[in-house]
């Protein structure tokens, strides 16, 4: 069966299916769908390099956040300390197995996969044409990103601390600062990242591409 891919300058809005031509964007500019307002394209100069730098920093922050204690609590001579995984372990010990697994998934596994997939995609896409597994991983990052909830965990810990503050003395550890850094880095990573740029570099399933695409002409490839 023959099918044709259209010129890369024309897209359909993912949210309302309106066909539109992407105008040439100035660096940092974004194009929005005229009908529904959804962002349909962005020109992020050096997207791949910057996202890679952020992903490397996020990986380091992730490791430190998970290795170091987040805080120490003392109540009349008794001390207690926890890590991100400490919460998971305690929930498991208390018999809330499913919740324990879910927290592990949202706070540890999904963020780890998100950062890992991102690193692999960005490194492999540096020299086009990128192998097909890059596309597969890129689709997986959508799933890992959906369930990665470091920022929600961070706020949850903050609320827990305020609740506890009356009962005990709380001392923050390195882990909590690393977790805060991780939140900032992962947010920056997803804002900076331009999946369209990676897709334009991936080898096509039918072996035809990638073709020279006009959307990457806006300087996104002009890294040193």
């Amino acid at each position, binding site marked *: *069966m*023959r*099918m*044709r*891919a*259209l010129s890369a300058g024309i*897209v*359909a809005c*993912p*949210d*309302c*299916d*309106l*066909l539109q031509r992407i105008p040439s964007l100035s660096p940092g500019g974004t194009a929005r769908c*005229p*009908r*529904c*307002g*959804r962002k349909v394209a962005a020109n992020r100069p050096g997207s791949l390099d910057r996202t890679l730098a952020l992903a490397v920093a996020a990986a380091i922050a992730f490791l430190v956040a998970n290795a170091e204690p987040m805080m120490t*609590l003392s*109540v*009349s001579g*008794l001390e*207690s300390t*926890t890590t991100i995984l400490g*919460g*998971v372990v305690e*929930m498991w010990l*208390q018999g*809330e197995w*499913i*919740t324990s697994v*879910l*927290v592990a998934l*949202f706070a540890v596994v999904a963020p780890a996969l998100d950062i890992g997939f991102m690193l692999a995609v960005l490194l492999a896409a540096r020299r086009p044409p990128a192998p097909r597994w890059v*596309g597969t991983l*890129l*689709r997986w990052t959508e799933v890992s990103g959906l369930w990665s*909830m470091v920022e*929600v965990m961070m*706020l*949850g*810990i*903050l*609320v*827990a601390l*305020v*609740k*506890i503050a*009356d*009962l*005990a003395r709380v001392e923050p550890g390195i882990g909590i600062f690393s977790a805060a850094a991780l939140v900032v880095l992962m947010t920056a990573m997803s804002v900076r990242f331009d*999946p*369209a740029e990676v*897709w334009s570099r991936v080898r*096509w*399933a*039918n072996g*035809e*591409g990638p073709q020279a695409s006009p959307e990457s002409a806006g300087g996104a490839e002009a890294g040193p």
Partner: protein
Amino acid sequence: MNGAAAIAARAGLVSCEACRLLVRPAAPSVPGRCPRCGEELEFRRRDVIQRTWAFAIAAAICYLPANILPVMTTTSLTYKEPDTILSGVILLYKTGSWHLALVVLIASVMIPLAKLAALAYLLITVQRGSVRNSRDRARLYRLLEIVGRWSMLDVFVVTYTVALIQFHPLLSIAPGPGVLFFAAVVILTIFAAESFDPRMIWDSDKGEPTRNG
């Protein structure tokens, strides 16, 4: 916006949901796979309405036990007190941090309810073929996608309170069965929002400018 809006599906074009490549399938009845990423092409997702309703109704059912059952139980030398989500909010308010009480109230109680109401509204308007307020409905859907995850807040609050407060026998906090139902509500509403196809908001719109109905 111009009046004669060109819609991909009506022009026989399909935009790959995975990589956004615009493709003209040889046979519209069998769109096949995306030539770039290999994903199966679909003009619209299948069984959107049924699936989204199923997830939303399941979430609504879990919402009750999530709010009625205790999410944690505090045990000290003198007392044993179960807390639901709402009583946790009240406790936060009474101990003086009303702003955090508000954050938890919004994230845990109001967002899940608002999300269910919004999903029902989107589904019903799509089913009735409404062409009014399409832009607002599209915006509402995008808001749902962003805001939904924050409802998981209380699950993390409970987890890390439990992890820290284990001073047996002086003071200890154990998780309650409400947490699991609560997590289920959030997960199910995320699934509901993800299974919806926002393009259907616009499908009854035949091209005339209907920005504000």
